[in-house]
C-alpha cells in the first residue's frame, strides 16, 4: 500500500516553507528531492568509510570499492541489464550520451553516414550527435512528432537506410511527458542493423525500465532524477558494443598496461571510467534505488497515474490555458501556457506562492519551435506529490490570471 503522506515524511525538504508558504515542489524533471536514507548513506560513507576505491590495499578502500561495485549490481537489477559489466557510471545522462556519441562516432561514424534523433529531444540528446556528425562528416536527421506529442514513428521506416548508424530517442519527453514506443523503435532499427540509444532520464523515476525488454543497445539515466545525489549517472551498453568501442577519456583506472610506447585498456566497464569515479554518488544511487524498491515501482507508477489523471482533469477545464502534449501514454510532466501571460511572469508569481515550477524552453528548443512558442511553464511531478498540491497549483494559476487580467 502506497501511503503518500508517509513517503513525504521520508523527504526532509518537503516539509519546508518557501516565501512563507508550504513548498509545492513541481520541478522534479529538473531534479528530484532526496529521501533521508540517501542523505544518511552519504553522511555515513564520509563519516565511517571514505577512501578512494580500487587497488587500495587497506580496509576502508576495500569497503568503498565493494560499495561501488554493489551499486553497479543494484543498477543492473534496476534496469534489468544482463551483466554488471554493461553498467558504466558517468556524471549523468548528458555525459552518458556524450560518451556514446564520441566513442561510437570515432569507431563507426563516417562521412555520409546518418544519425537519427527526434524533434522532441532534450538538447543533451541532440548536441552531442551534432558534434559527432560535424567531426565525422555524417548528417543528423530528426523524426518529427504530432501536436499531441506522439512521435511520427511511421516515418522512421523510410528514414532508416544503409547509411544510418544510430537512432537516439528519449524514452519520455521532458516537456510533454509522452512515453515513446522505444521497444517498437528498437525492433525497427534492428531490422536495419542500426543500434538504438534510449535517453531514460525522464522515464527512470516513473516506470520500470527494462533494457532487455526494450532491447536497446544503450540507455542513459541520471541519479539525481531518481532521488540520488547529483553528479552520478548511468550508461548501459550491450557488451558487444562496449568491448568494441574505444575509450572515451584516458587516465587512471581504465588501463591494462601503460608503457611510454603504448597502453592497453581495461575491459568494460572500467575502460570507460577514467579517473576517480564518483563512488559517493554511486552509493547514494544505491540507497535511492533501494528506497524505490522498498516502495515498489509499480506502486509509484499507480500513485502517479492518479496524479496524472487529476492534473489532466484540472487543466482540461482551465479556461485560457493551453496544455502541450496529449499522448495516450504519459508520465506526470505537464507543460502549458496561460493565454497572454509570459511563462516567466507566471512562474515568478507561482514561486511567490511556494509553487516551484520551471519556465522556459526546458532545453528542448526544437520542440518549442514545433509549437511556435518561446517557452512554457512546466509542472513535473514525482512520487511524493499529492492531489491537494495539484489543486494548489490550479488555484495559483487562477491568481496569476487575475493579476494579469
Amino acid at each position, binding site marked *: 500500500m502506497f501511503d503518500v503522506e508517509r513517503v513525504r515524511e521520508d523527504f526532509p525538504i518537503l516539509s519546508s516553507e518557501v516565501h512563507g508558504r508550504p513548498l509545492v515542489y513541481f520541478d522534479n524533471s529538473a531534479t528530484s528531492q532526496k529521501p533521508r536514507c540517501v542523505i544518511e548513506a552519504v553522511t555515513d560513507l564520509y563519516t565511517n568509510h571514505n577512501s578512494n576505491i580500487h587497488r587500495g590495499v587497506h580496509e576502508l578502500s576495500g569497503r568503498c570499492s565493494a560499495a561501488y561495485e554493489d551499486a553497479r549490481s543494484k543498477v543492473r537489477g534496476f534496469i534489468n541489464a544482463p551483466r554488471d559489466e554493461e553498467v558504466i557510471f558517468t556524471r549523468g545522462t548528458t555525459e552518458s550520451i556524450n560518451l556514446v556519441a564520441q566513442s561510437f562516432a570515432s569507431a563507426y561514424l563516417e562521412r555520409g553516414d546518418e544519425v537519427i534523433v527526434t524533434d522532441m529531444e532534450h538538447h543533451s540528446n541532440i548536441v552531442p550527435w551534432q558534434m559527432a556528425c560535424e567531426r565525422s562528416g555524417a548528417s543528423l536527421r530528426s523524426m518529427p512528432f504530432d501536436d499531441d506529442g506522439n512521435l511520427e514513428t511511421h516515418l522512421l521506416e523510410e528514414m532508416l537506410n544503409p547509411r544510418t548508424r544510430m537512432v537516439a530517442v528519449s524514452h519520455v519527453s521532458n516537456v510533454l511527458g509522452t512515453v515513446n514506443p522505444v521497444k517498437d523503435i528498437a525492433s525497427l532499427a534492428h531490422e536495419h542493423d542500426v543500434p538504438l540509444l534510449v535517453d531514460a532520464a525522464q522515464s527512470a523515476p516513473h516506470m520500470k525500465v527494462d533494457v532487455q525488454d526494450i532491447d536497446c543497445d544503450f540507455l542513459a539515466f541520471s541519479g539525481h532524477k531518481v532521488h540520488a545525489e547529483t553528479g552520478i549517472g548511468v550508461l548501459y551498453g550491450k557488451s558487444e558494443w562496449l568491448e568494441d568501442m574505444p575509450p572515451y577519456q584516458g587516465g587512471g583506472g581504465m588501463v591494462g598496461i601503460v608503457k611510454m610506447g603504448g597502453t592497453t585498456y581495461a575491459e568494460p566497464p572500467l575502460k570507460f571510467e577514467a579517473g576517480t569515479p564518483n563512488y559517493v554518488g554511486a552509493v547514494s544511487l544505491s540507497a535511492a534505488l533501494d528506497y524505490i524498491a522498498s516502495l515498489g515501482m509499480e506502486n509509484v507508477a499507480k500513485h502517479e497515474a492518479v496524479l496524472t489523471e487529476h492534473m489532466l482533469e484540472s487543466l482540461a477545464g482551465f479556461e485560457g490555458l493551453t496544455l502541450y502534449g496529449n499522448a495516450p501514454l504519459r508520465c506526470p510532466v505537464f507543460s502549458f501556457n496561460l493565454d497572454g501571460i*509570459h511563462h516567466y511572469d507566471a512562474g515568478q508569481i507561482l514561486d511567490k506562492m511556494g509553487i516551484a515550477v520551471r519556465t522556459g524552453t526546458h532545453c528542448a528548443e526544437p520542440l518549442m519551435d514545433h509549437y511556435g512558442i518561446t517557452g512554457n511553464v512546466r509542472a513535473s511531478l514525482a512520487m511524493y506529490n499529492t492531489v491537494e498540491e495539484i489543486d494548489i497549483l490550479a488555484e495559483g494559476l487562477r491568481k496569476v490570471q487575475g493579476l494579469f487580467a
Partner: protein
Amino acid sequence: MDIVEIQNEIVAEFSVLDDWFDVYEHLIELGRGLDALSPEHRTEDNAIPGCQSNVWLRMGMENGTLKLEADSDALITRGILSLLLRVMDGTRPEEIMDSELFFLDETGLSTNLSPSRSDGVKNIINTIMGFVRNHK
C-alpha cells in the same frame, strides 16, 4: 529631477506597497505603460543575453543625454525596464557614471526578483553602463 531624486521617488513609491503581490501588481502596471519597441528594433543586436525572457535595448545619444528604449515579451520584466528608463533615459552619461544605482536594492526589488531575473537585470545594467562609458 536628477538621478538621485528619481530613484528616491521610486523607492518612496514602492515603500507604500504592502506585500509582494502589490509589488508585482505595480510592476505589471508599469510594464503595461512602457512604450513598445517597434518590431524592426527587436533585433538580435539589440537583444540582451542571459535573460529568461527576451529583452531588447536600443541605446543612442540625443543632445548629450542617453536615449534609452527597451522592451521585453514578459510583462514584469517590462515593469523593471520602465523603472530603468525612468532613471537613465534622458540623463547625461557623466551623471549616470557618477551616481550609484541604489533603487533596486532599496525598493527590495533585487531580493524580490528571482536570482535568474536579477542576473538578467544585472546584464541589462551592465550593457547600459558599457554604452554610457563609451559615450561620456
